[in-house]
């Protein structure tokens, strides 16, 4: 399951930038109406390469009756219910609801008529995955186009019945009306007895945000009642008949190789199935406890190798560049010349540690084999990626693997891989019964992957008038997301340096944008102080992007920037930027206790603009949620490791934000009906770290350049600095 350190490549941008591999449908067109019943179906075909890469099929087999690059589909049945299909998944970001709103809006039906089928490789079109804040900007318009095409088709059907033309008719509230005669036909009536299937290019016009009726509103989460009554079934809640519970023998350290294993005691236990496949050893039993006992009864010898420690992490990263993945810098003008001309110069290093996603629902999977076909239920952001991993690892064709994603107990970029699915599937094959694997919290903290640690080196220069003259930025390992500066500077050199990471690393909410914004916006603060210019004024002096200026201005106003003098121990700061089509500015107020060294974030104001807002209620949850999640990584979360082991793999040792840590929170949502909606799950997190760091400096004069900033309070940080 684990990969040797030398094989560990950086994973975050890979999932962002690489296209999906070639895929095919399991659900053939001729089977579609058998599964869905009679009615009207619309298949949306990607018209542009970006949509096709995001979701869709890259090619059709010659004998396949599917068109190329289908990205979504939609079915209206003969009782008027609409089912929309997408490979996206719901992990708490409210996509199920916002996508349903978009379909209802475009089709002119009430939200209650929409059923979303999501993240099921047998029923939904191929999709690269739910990450990168792409569901709203890419999937929503595709579903809208399917709905728009369906509406056109319904208008045509009604026009034919009434012997008129579609342009004389209107669609509303699930029916077609002929204003001239007053006649109406419901969508249900029009779908009666039909098996109409149409392909539509996704270039059809869709309703502009200013005319939305169902979208743009704060509607409650779909299925909300199931969540407050405990009825919603997440992956760990599934209990198929004859279920066994699986446990895996974990190596004593990363990269350990199995030398020998005595399985006899485990195999002798009644009802226990033990699997050994290469270095993978696992047991399945009727209860979790019996499976644990079986694993404990295995005597295994492992060969380990010495590995590095988090104590020397940052020097390790600088010394272990991955030259094979070397990337060219972004260059503009001459940074060296710009620096030479500067009146004030800054040269600083910023660092961020590894952190864990710690989704509250641990990685889990239920696997079941029937007639050489495998079905796996698992909480993943990449159902089709997991299908591929299962197919490869178990050496069975992809069309024999079905992956279903129940709405999942959060992910934050941490659920891209098939780990638990592979384990459950391998055990289930051996047991010939369904097997459930639910990772323990310690397994979560150890065997998943982490948000990359990083070192960021910045050189900045400003002229006497406070204008930036040069900007040099090097990111080692943490990633390139959000690395380019939004500020106006003629001379730039910005480069990402891949590293052979000592830990398995991958995606995380906002990816490296958090680290890059922390470094950049802290450095901007340092430059402002060097030039004795107010930090807000300094940013504005160097910023022409009107959307970013606007969020800084909104947040500053609501926060009351520099309206009052600081009390002792009180400080304020800001940070902001642009990423994934979202514009964010965050202001924070902190209180520093001189004696105890405790830093408390008192108040956070975030202004966020991501084009037209689809659901302001869900968006507010995401903006405030991102900031609260961010408190952990900024203040105290850090994975500690030594010699191939995680030293703090428990909630008692790895502190995540809790109720006492929560400041007064305010989210200002800027709704731009004139702009298409962008994603919003990630970018609101990026402004917080610099806002807090800059506020701590404002309060104490102490500049913290490493995340987390105060894992053991300010005094401990000062002492170790």
């Amino acid at each position, binding site marked *: 399951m684990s990969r040797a350190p030398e094989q560990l490549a950086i994973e975050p941008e890979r999932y962002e930038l690489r296209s999906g591999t070639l895929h095919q449908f399991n659900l053939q067109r001729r089977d579609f109406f058998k599964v869905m019943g009679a009615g009207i179906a619309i298949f949306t075909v990607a018209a542009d390469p970006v949509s096709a890469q995001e979701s869709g099929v890259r090619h059709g087999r010659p004998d396949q009756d599917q068109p190329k690059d289908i990205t979504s589909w939609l079915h209206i049945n003969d009782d008027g219910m609409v089912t929309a299909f997408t490979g996206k998944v719901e*992990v*708490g*970001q*409210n996509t199920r609801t916002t996508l349903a709103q978009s379909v209802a809006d475009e089709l002119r039906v009430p939200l209650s008529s929409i059923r979303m089928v999501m993240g099921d490789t047998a029923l939904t079109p191929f999709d690269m995955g739910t990450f990168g804040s792409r569901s709203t900007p890419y999937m929503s318009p595709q579903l809208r186009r399917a709905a728009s095409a369906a509406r056109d088709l319904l208008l045509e059907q009604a026009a034919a019945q009434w012997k008129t033309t579609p342009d004389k008719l209107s669609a509303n509230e699930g029916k077609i009306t002929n204003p001239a005669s007053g006649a109406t036909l419901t969508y249900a009536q029009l779908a009666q007895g039909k098996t109409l299937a149409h392909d539509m290019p996704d270039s059809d016009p869709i309703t502009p945000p200013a005319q939305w009726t169902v979208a743009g509103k704060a509607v*409650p*989460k779909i299925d*909300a*009642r199931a*969540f*407050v*009554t*405990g*009825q*919603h*079934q*997440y992956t*760990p*809640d599934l*209990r198929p008949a004859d279920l066994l*519970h699986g446990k895996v023998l974990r190596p004593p350290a990363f990269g350990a190789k199995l030398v020998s294993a005595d399985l006899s005691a485990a195999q002798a236990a009644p009802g226990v199935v033990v699997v050994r496949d290469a270095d993978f050893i696992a047991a399945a039993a009727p*209860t*979790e*406890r019996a499976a644990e006992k079986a694993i404990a009864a295995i005597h295994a010898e492992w060969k380990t190798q010495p590995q590095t420690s988090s104590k020397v992490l940052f020097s390790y990263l600088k010394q272990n560049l991955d030259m094979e993945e070397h990337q060219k810098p972004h260059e503009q003008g001459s940074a060296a010349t710009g620096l030479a001309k500067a009146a004030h110069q800054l040269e600083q290093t910023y660092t961020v540690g590894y952190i864990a996603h*710690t*989704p*509250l*629902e*641990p990685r889990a999977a239920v696997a079941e084999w029937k007639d050489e076909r495998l079905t796996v239920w698992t909480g993943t952001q990449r159902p089709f990626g997991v299908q591929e991993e299962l197919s490869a690892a178990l050496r069975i064709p992809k069309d024999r693997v079905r992956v279903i994603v129940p*709405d*999942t*107990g*959060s992910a*934050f970029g941490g659920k891209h891989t098939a780990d638990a699915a592979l384990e459950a599937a391998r055990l289930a094959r051996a047991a010939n019964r369904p097997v459930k694997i*639910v990772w*323990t*919290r310690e397994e979560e903290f150890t065997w998943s992957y982490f948000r990359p640690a990083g070192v960021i080196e910045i050189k900045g220069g400003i002229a006497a008038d406070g204008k930036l003259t040069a900007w040099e930025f090097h990111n080692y390992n943490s990633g390139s997301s959000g690395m380019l500066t939004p500020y106006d500077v003629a001379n730039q050199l910005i480069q990402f340096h891949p590293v052979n990471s000592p830990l398995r690393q991958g995606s995380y909410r906002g990816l490296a944008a958090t680290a890059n914004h922390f470094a950049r916006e802290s450095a901007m603060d340092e430059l402002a102080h060097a030039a004795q210019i107010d930090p807000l004024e300094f940013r504005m002096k160097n910023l022409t992007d009107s959307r970013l200026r606007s969020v800084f201005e909104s947040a500053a106003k609501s926060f009351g920037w520099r309206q009052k003098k600081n009390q002792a121990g009180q400080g304020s700061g800001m940070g902001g930027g642009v990423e994934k089509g979202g514009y964010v500015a965050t202001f924070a107020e902190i209180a520093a206790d001189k004696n105890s060294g405790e830093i408390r974030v008192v108040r956070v104001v975030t202004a966020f603009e991501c084009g037209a807002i689809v659901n302001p*209620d869900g968006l507010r*949850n*995401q903006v*405030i*949620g*991102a*900031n*609260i*999640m961010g408190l952990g990584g900024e203040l105290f979360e850090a994975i500690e490791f030594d010699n191939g082991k995680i030293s703090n793999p*428990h*909630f*008692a040792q790895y502190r*995540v*934000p*809790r*109720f*006492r840590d*929560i400041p007064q*929170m305010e989210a200002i949502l800027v709704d731009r009906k004139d702009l298409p909606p962008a994603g919003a799950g990630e970018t609101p997190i990026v402004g917080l770290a610099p806002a807090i760091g800059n506020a701590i400096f404002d309060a104490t004069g102490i500049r913290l350049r490493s995340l987390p900033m105060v894992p053991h309070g300010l005094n401990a940080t000062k002492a170790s600095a």
Partner: protein
Amino acid sequence: MATAVHAEINGKSRAFACEPNTSLLFALREELGLTGTKYACGEGQCGACTILLNGTPRRSCQLSVADGAGKSIVTIEGFEQNGQLHPVQQAFLDQGAFQCAYCTSGMIVSSVALLQNNSSPSELEIVQALQGNICRCGTHPRIIAAVQQAAKAMHGSRS
């Protein structure tokens, strides 16, 4: 095999067939199918598995089936009565106080326990009561608002 352990679960007498030293959380979920109570850490650190044991909020991952013998156990499934949500459930619904909602059962059970003992808690008292419950999505401000709404609703219905 030891004799079955009996307990009153959500108002009904139930028997556990499993070994008495089985985790109460596992038995509730896997044997009785009460999967609304969640496993999230198994270490008593996150509160997702909170149940009421004789009216007191307890981490069911830290209890065995034997600990529940002869006692009253209430899980998230026990709050809805005749299709009516408990005021705390209703308040979570009204406030949209969940995102992925994996922590929600534990949050609701802990909040019900708080309001049983303190009909109008201050914000600080709510924070203290829920300090042991982790929400990773960062929905804390709305959870506090939901508890405040429920307190008002319950206070009103009693007076």
